[in-house]
């Protein structure tokens, strides 16, 4: 009897002792055969299931690029839609392998949450959307306004900073769910909806009458949106970071999903190194030699991803702006592969 109890207690204790493996994400991913990617619950242009229930968007394409680099299969991804208030817990619990989820890179998140940001996929800034008939043209006219915000975001803090700095009164109405925020704004609960400017454009594109709403020109914050991995797993961090760099480098070198096969015969050493024709840079990531070739072949380069999901020909109609390559006066810049 006594032995039985001790055995049960010990096995229970052993079960609890088994800590979630924090290192070796790549091994785990290869073993299960897919990347578990944390995305938004639905922001057009970034991550939203389409009519066939396939996820699409800029964030989603990044996950596909990562899956291509590892498996040569852009569909070896499973998506976990997460609220802004759930996302970091989902990361630290190991529920997802990475977060590609319009998440702003801030110092406190980088240093206190046990997270690492891999690289800015999208340079954004916080803006305001108001109804056109309100006649508002600048955020400085918003004194006394009711403002709809999603909880647990940098948006919430930026709004508090902005209104305090400008001595304006405001009335924050915060919701956990982004859909609830947008619905409350549409129902007239708020005069203003504030989030990242790209998010405003995304939400407006889904309104019944988008032209009845204006996004104010003024941007009140820096919102570098970056994919996130867990701290303490450098191999996985490197893969995630260089997936992004490969996308940017490919655009800079003029390699697209259409011409990538031709480019294999290019004489440009930079192109040769990126596509794995010369040297083996994949090995140091724990990947195959042609990891970047697979990314571009399956998903395209950064510019293609941008134009496909949020560019001027999409409902979001965003200009490249600061997200242009550094060679075109933008901020997108990747270290060389050599």
């Amino acid at each position, binding site marked *: 009897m006594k032995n039985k109890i001790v055995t049960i207690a010990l096995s229970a204790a052993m079960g609890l002792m088994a800590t979630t493996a924090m290192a070796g994400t790549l091994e785990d991913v290869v073993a299960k055969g897919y990347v578990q990617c944390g995305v938004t619950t639905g922001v057009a242009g970034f991550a939203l299931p389409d009519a066939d229930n396939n996820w699409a968007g800029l964030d989603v394409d990044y996950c596909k690029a990562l899956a291509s680099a590892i498996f040569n299969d852009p569909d070896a991804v499973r998506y976990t839609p997460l609220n802004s208030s759930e996302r*970091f817990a989902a990361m630290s619990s190991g529920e997802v392998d990475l977060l590609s989820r319009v998440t702003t890179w801030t110092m406190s998140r980088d240093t206190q949450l046990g997270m690492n940001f891999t690289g800015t996929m999208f340079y954004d800034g916080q803006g305001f959307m108001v109804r056109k008939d309100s006649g508002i043209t600048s955020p400085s006219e918003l004194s006394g306004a009711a403002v709809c915000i999603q909880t647990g975001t940098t948006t919430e803090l930026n709004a508090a900073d902005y209104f305090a700095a400008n001595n304006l009164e405001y009335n924050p109405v915060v919701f956990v769910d982004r859909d609830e925020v947008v619905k409350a704004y549409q129902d007239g609960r708020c005069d203003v909806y504030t989030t990242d400017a790209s998010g405003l454009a995304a939400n407006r594109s889904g309104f019944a009458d988008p032209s009845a709403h204006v996004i104010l020109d003024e941007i009140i914050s820096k919102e570098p949106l970056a994919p996130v991995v867990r701290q303490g797993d450098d191999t996985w961090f490197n893969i995630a970071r260089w997936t992004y760099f490969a996308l940017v480098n490919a655009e800079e070198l003029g390699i697209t999903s259409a011409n990538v096969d031709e480019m294999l015969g290019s004489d440009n050493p930079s192109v040769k190194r990126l596509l794995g024709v010369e040297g083996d840079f994949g090995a140091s990531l724990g990947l195959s030699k042609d990891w970047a070739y697979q990314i571009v072949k399956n998903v395209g380069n950064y510019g293609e991803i941008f134009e496909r999901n949020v560019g001027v020909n999409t409902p979001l109609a965003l200009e490249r702006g600061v997200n242009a390559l550094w060679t075109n006066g933008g901020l997108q810049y990747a270290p060389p592969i050599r």
Partner: protein
Amino acid sequence: MADLRNNHNLAPKPSFFNDPKVRSIFYQLVVMAIIIAFVYVVATNTAANLAAQNKSTGFDFFLQPASFDINFTLIPFDRTSYYWEAFVVGMLNTLLVSVIGVIFATLLGFMLGIARLSNNWIIAKLAMVYVEIIRNVPLLLQLFFWYTVVLKAMPGVKNSFEWFGGFVLNNRGFSFPKPMPDETFNLVFIAFFIAVIGAFALKYWARKRLEQTGNRFPVFWASIGLLIAFPVVVWLISGANLAFETPELKGFNYKGGLTLPSEFLALLFGLIIYTTAFIAEIVRSGIVAVDKGQTEAAQSLGLKDGDRLRLVIIPQAMRVIIPPLTSQFLNLTKNSSLAAAIGYPDLVSVFMQTTLNQTGRAVEIVFITMMVYLTLSLITSVFMNWYNARVAMVER
């Protein structure tokens, strides 16, 4: 020799290992050890995992500035306030909606429960339909429903309903004049307090008189009169001034006065309507549980209908009603945590959503939040148990 003889009367002493007393102590110790080991393992494992995840831990965040705003607070709060103040704001908001909810749900629940037993067919059936619909639809859906109703059915700010030049209702909430008493007005509050004591004294005196002379005294109406008349007389004599700050439309919104935001109204409404249905059933069951003979006995004593309910039926029904009623009070308080879904800044919304996200201290904050609900529930239970003991039947 004497010892030996005494031993004959005792049961044969079992061996040490078969002694039931020893065994029971042994197993209790084993269970205790397992529980302690379990708690220890969970605690150390959590701490080790958090450290392995490179996360900041601890409760020091309470003294850091919160740097966010909250739109409905009972104490002053802005972005320079600390996280512990945000915690207090959330807790007070939870308490506010719970206390008001409990009061109204109890009143309405009693009315509805009695209505279900009404001899009037329509009233009884209407009450039944209400109870069956409301208690069989999930509360979260009802909250979304009421919130949508509040937002969609109410006019925008520019077309607000206005009554008596100060009561304003629109989709932002309900605004009303804010009383601004001057200092001498304190006398009126003191007068009211004295009147309350007077009302109790009056009740005591009337009871004595009833026992001695058999004459009744209209205590209820006299007390109401006392509670109103005395403060008003003091107000007029002292010359205290009570000004009102009325809400006025300025720019986007009404400014001044006091405002209950639509989220608060929707949550309160939803909680009251939902809990009322359950309380009505409890009240009905309590009354039905009182034997019909009690009614007949009261009637044969010649008690009037009101007295029969008040003196015979209700006191006996209360013994059945109070324990499940306590559960409903606890449910209402805990259900108020659904507030986050519709944007009311309660404890869960302010502390477990916003604060948790901005600080990342998930384990600490979830633990504190659970402790708060546990404490609120235990306090409610202690109070209700005390009340239950008071109304319990005294067995003779």
